[in-house]
């Protein structure tokens, strides 16, 4: 009999990152609590690929090596294509830990999410919903949040082409893809995002940070902190430690700027 679930391979696929007992921290932003529902909204409909990647990366840190249930609406196959395993590897995710469920509509996705959130064997449940759908309302979100609290399985819900509405989520984030810092010869660099905290239960709203996802360290690094490092000829391997950013500092420099070299 085959061991079930399959053991995660040791080595590069072992998730690291700042995941404590209570949740995962993304750079300087507040901690994403485990055992809660977190909503992610795409700032523009075209940000859906960035949103999927970003949420999966956060999910992998939260999951701590346990499997992830990824529920996708059928619309995604049409609008965004289907998950591509080599791309997931390249992004620093472990394809072996993903269970991908394809569902017809938001109602089915929420049902599946609820089933997943009640299963203590999962590391994280990631739901992707496309467009406005009356099925996702206050009651549905409350149900998900309660299930997540009871089982301790974090629930990440990504919404694309939808307006934020009141819900029972612990935190609500908005994600926007940012132009990357170019490598040599104007090649696209590490994936960059802007993450804004729209709403948090503990009240620290409006925080935002420019992030870069480093798949080798499996970490989001605040770009304001890493911008000072030389980026040429190739990107240096970034250190694990993250310098947190104080909130009262002015906004990060415009991301289009080329990385500065340190004088002397």
């Amino acid at each position, binding site marked *: 009999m085959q061991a079930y*679930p399959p053991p995660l391979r040791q080595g590069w696929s072992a998730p690291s990152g700042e995941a404590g007992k209570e949740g995962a921290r993304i750079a300087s932003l507040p901690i994403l609590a485990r055992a809660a529902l977190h909503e992610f909204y795409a700032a523009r409909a075209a940000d859906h*690929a960035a949103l999927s990647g970003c949420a999966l990366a956060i999910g992998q840190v939260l999951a701590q090596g346990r499997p992830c249930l990824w529920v996708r609406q059928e619309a995604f196959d049409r609008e965004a294509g289907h*998950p*591509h395993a080599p*791309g997931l590897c390249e992004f620093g995710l472990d394809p*072996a830990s993903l*269970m991908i469920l394809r569902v017809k509509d938001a109602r*089915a996705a929420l049902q599946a999410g609820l089933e997943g959130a009640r299963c203590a*064997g999962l590391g994280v449940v990631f739901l992707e919903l496309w467009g406005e759908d009356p099925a996702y309302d206050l009651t549905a979100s409350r149900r998900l949040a309660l299930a997540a609290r009871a089982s301790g399985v974090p629930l990440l819900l990504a919404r694309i082409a939808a307006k934020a509405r009141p819900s029972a989520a612990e935190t609500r984030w908005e994600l926007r893809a940012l132009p990357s810092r170019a490598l040599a010869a104007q090649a696209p660099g590490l994936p960059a995002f802007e993450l804004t905290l729209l709403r948090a239960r503990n009240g620290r709203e409006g925080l935002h940070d420019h992030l870069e996802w480093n798949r080798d360290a499996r970490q989001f690094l605040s770009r304001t902190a890493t911008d000072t490092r030389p980026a040429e000829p190739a990107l240096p391997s970034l250190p694990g430690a993250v310098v947190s950013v104080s909130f009262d500092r002015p906004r990060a420099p415009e991301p289009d700027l080329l990385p500065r070299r340190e004088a002397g």
Partner: protein
Amino acid sequence: MALAEARALWPNLETEEAAPEADARFLKRASEICEMFTPLVAIKGRDGLALDITGCVHLFGGESEMLLRACRRLRSLGLTTFGAIASTPHAARAFARYRRNTIAGPAEDETLARALPVSALDQDQATSIALGRAGFRTLADLADRPSHMLSARFGEDLVARLHRILGREDLRITPLRTPPLLMAERHFPEPMTQMEHLLTVLARLMDDVANRLEARGEGGRSFELTLFRADGAVRRIGIETASGTREAASLVRLARLKMETLADPVDPGFGFDALRLMVLRSEPLHAVQASLAEGAKPEDEARALADLVNRLVARFGRENLRRLVSRDTHDPALAGGMAEFLSANPAMAWPAPEAGQPPARPLTLFAHPQPIEVLAEVPDSPPLRFRWRRMLHEVTRAEGPERIAPEWWREASPAPATRDYYRIEDQAGHRFWIFREGLYEDRNSQPRWFLHGLFP
């Protein structure tokens, strides 16, 4: 008799073109109905069914009662049915044709079969004529002759058939479906119309099966529930589990989930008159003692996960729960695929990405690359801007080309064109994987551009 002759005799004769395929389909359906009597059913020839009823007779109150019920069941399909029961399938077939409603007891086969005409041997016309000329009328005439003489004159086949009909040789039927590992069934005296009652019966059958699985030290992986409706419709519902299980309660829950989500719901109609549960596949499963200690254990988590997989598969369909699989090929469209979660091999080798580089492959890939309109500066350079889904994207960063040739040794001719892939980023920070199909050097065809995937 030829058709013209028949029409001459009876001018108003109605004729219909023969449809052997439709007949075969109908016979297949009839065989499914007969599965309520025994799981071992075989189709014999163009118009016969053979049922192996060994050990099933007592369920129907004796052989004559069973034969009557089977014939009545098939008659309800609009068939004219003749049946017989004998010790060997060949004897039963001969009796059904030439001595209707015979029920040959043990060791009675030969005495009864001797009276059958020689046509029961099903020989071709030449042999039948030869038998008639030689003065053979019944099987008794043949049975008393030494068999080597008969085989010298009429061939081995005739002797073999004769022996089978006389019950001297027993050749079992080959059933249409492989017999299950375990089976439990319940027949109702009156058709049952309430789904709730049906589920109660199912729970009992599950209990029965679970106990027998426990005695074998096994857990079932694949179950099949067969519902026999009074009007002859047969409905099969398959239940598959992620790991061996013998918990009756969770299996009943899965069956209920499955029935609730069927695209074509189970319709009781005039009621079901039999219910059968079969275990098609099982695997060793050892008894586990419930833990006395507090806290979740890895085994508990694994069980919870297997349970979740079962529920998701039952509710959303086996084909919708998938895992990623890798294939050993350089073609990006083929390298990463998805396979059904239950059937895919979980142990896959994934290539580790090159350190210090941004992702080289997109997170999502379109099944069909999306055509885009492109403005490129010079032939071999990445585009300056492109239009996809009516949106114009200004390209600010690009890397490439990465030339990927198709697997010409696999594809049929003509081989698809070579693709030059570019990783590009637009002014808004969205990253795309696009390619140019065909080369500018090739004067015969204009290169076309496609968008193949999206980067985060």
